């Protein structure tokens, strides 16, 4: 659909989350931010195990509250039209739980626990994390930098088909 219609629809969704706070008229550039609790209840995000991290990565203050600009940003990166490189950048941010620009072992453990709802035993978790680092770490520092992550994810066949994409 046209970019205009998309933004119009997004504004409708943004407004209906908090009709008392979000103005219908955005020409004066109001400074309105919605808290994370409201946004992660959206149907597209509700079932996603990474919903908090997604919202945090797109918020300016890192706490998870999104202004309308950030909201549009989030949906545009997660749409079908966003280029692969851009998605890889944001995917890296999302999986980097402690925001130190590296995906270290602790980040991997958190990711795995969220994916399996903590149903794996501790040894299994350790094994998987070690395997991931063994597979993807190119520069040998024991954690994944952005170059390692990008190199690995660019070959993944599912990265653009359903992983990391919403339909709005």
């Amino acid at each position, binding site marked *: 659909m046209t970019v205009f219609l998309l933004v119009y629809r997004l504004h409708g969704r943004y407004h209906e989350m908090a009709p008392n706070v979000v103005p219908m008229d955005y020409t004066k550039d109001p400074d309105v931010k919605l808290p994370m609790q409201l946004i992660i209840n959206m*149907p597209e995000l509700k*079932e996603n195990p990474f919903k908090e991290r997604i919202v945090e990565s797109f918020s300016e203050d890192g706490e998870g509250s999104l202004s309308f600009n950030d909201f549009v940003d989030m949906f545009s990166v997660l749409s079908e039209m966003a280029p692969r490189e851009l998605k890889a950048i944001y995917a890296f941010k999302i999986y980097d739980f402690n925001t130190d620009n590296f995906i270290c072992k602790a980040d991997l453990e958190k990711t795995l626990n969220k994916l399996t709802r903590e149903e*794996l035993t501790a040894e299994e978790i350790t094994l998987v994390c070690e395997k991931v680092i063994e597979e993807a770490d190119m*520069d040998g520092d024991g954690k994944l930098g952005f170059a390692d992550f990008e190199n690995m994810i660019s070959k993944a066949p599912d990265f653009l088909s359903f992983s990391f994409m919403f339909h709005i």
Partner: protein
Amino acid sequence: ENCPRQNRSSNSFDEESLSEEELAMLMEQVEQRKKLISTMRNKPWRMVKKLSVLREAQAFVEKFEGALGKGKGKKLYAYKMMMAKKWVKFKRDFDNFKTQCIPWEMKIKEVESHFGSSVASYFIFLRWMYGVNLVLFGLIFGLVIIPEILMGMPYGSMPRKTVPRAEQATAMDFSVLWDFEGYIKYSALFYGYYNNQRTIGWLKYRLPMAYFMVGISVFGYSLMVVIRSMARNANQSTADGDDDNFIFSWKMFTSWDYLIGNPETADNKFASITTGFKESIVDEQESNKDENIHLRRFLRVLANVLIICCLCGSGYLIYFVVKRSQTFSKMQNVGWYERNEVEIVMSLLGMFCPPLFETIAALENYHPRIGLKWQLGRIFALFLGNLYTFLLALMDDVNEKLAEEDVVKNITRWMLLGHHNSSMGNSSADTPPPLDPADVPRGPCWETTVGIEFVRLTVSDILVTYVTILVGDFIRACFVRFVNYCWCWDLEAGFPSYAEFDISGNVLGLVFNQGMIWMGSFYAPGLVGINVLRLLTSMYFQCWAVMSSNVPHERVFKASKSNNFYMGLLLLILFLSLLPVAYTIMSLPPSFDCGPFSGKKRMYEVIQETIELDFPLFIAKIFSYMANPGLIIPAILLMVNSLRKIPIKLKINQHPSTCLKLLTHVNLNKNDQLL
């Protein structure tokens, strides 16, 4: 982004006073801004920053672009820019309009959010097939069927267009119509109806030529569309090279399906991800274990032998049944079963052999993904074998009919002579009254018979599919849901439970159905119309069945990394369906009294005839030189060569990160050696 000239230009803007180099610098800056605007999407900046930079860049470009032409050229340049912008906008609006016209988008999205993207990919494939068939139907309907109906001779005016006297009593019966005999056989749906008149109507429409060209372009268009779709898919997916290097990484970072919006589906997905991880861990631990290679090899060979026996058995069964149906057709008083035996046997084989293959494959002990590939390959071999056996048996029938033709020709000659003499005896007129078309003895018209066989096969395939869905999915779901209250064990958790949507079975069914359509459409132009209806109803029916009676998959295994596996199958089937049609066009003589090519020695002679009669003389000479095998064979080789280059070109376009990995590994190795 600082532009020192900006102030000066905005204050004293006078085109005459701008020197050459200032103009060049300005142009460079405008190009820079334009590049920034076009790559804005890729930059990971915050939206606020993007918006402000974009606004600034756009304002700059707008202000100074028009000024860049020199003197008189300025107006032309500005005009060209304006037209270019308008064209871009028009293209964008048209693209948006086209996107909004895509049918069934919401339906498919609903299926996607409940069942994940693999099930939805089947429906997207179905929709794509519907589009292709719609175009083919438009071609055939508009260029062949409509002209014959509107401008050709009407029903009843010629022997080929009239139901024979002997059959007229039963021609309207439902059972006869269901077998595609009676009035349907002598209608524009089948090859035999068409007249061989070179031009028809006031438009001088060359119908036989059109029939031939449409037949060829059906295959040409399908080929083009399939290859284009494969190229598009290949661009989106990555090379199938490094399969094993990132198993755990990909599982961790790309296994969650972001399109899931339903809690039940999410639960299933969590469970399947957990299972997937556990399986990979087990695989990893087991790959270090030793196993009995000899036993495994023996079992695999045994399984393959068993399956080859099954395939041969099914091939023989079909051959036997087709031969029997030919003897049945000569008998009177055949029951419903005898009439439909061939279709029933083929459908039953298609239903029961795949589960049989799966059971035998349990001996082989492959990884599930490899096992799935073997299974699909075997089902493919089964369908192919069945179809080609069917065709071979049909060819025997055709040859028999061709032999019969000579007999009929003789009978016709004697009969006309007899009619001549008797009517001459009664009146003294010179010419005898013409024989009623219904009484003229008919040749066997093998093309219509072939067309009818394909139509019947397609119809029975449709019925079997729908009945299977109804019984296997819907009635089963009703049974499990309602009888569960008064049953000893939990029907929902144990046997039979709700059905899962069989993606590969359905996709293969679609692919083979399309193969049959391609094969049969030359002899039954109406077949594509039937297929369009079938795909349309399938879309609604299967969407309803999936949403009401199926549950999401517990384990998801895709047969290939991209949709190209199924597209590749479709391409293969396209070539394989082209072969029988090309063979019959090139080597079999058309029937002498039915169809648009009647009276010719070979069907392709219509081209020579058109070139000789309708084109100026020198073109005929050129074509006669071009038809030399010495020219045609190199041309074909050139085409094959260029087709071969397409996948290589596509692979080159892939991400060059393979080089990065190679370099990094080399460096790591070097470091190891240094240490």
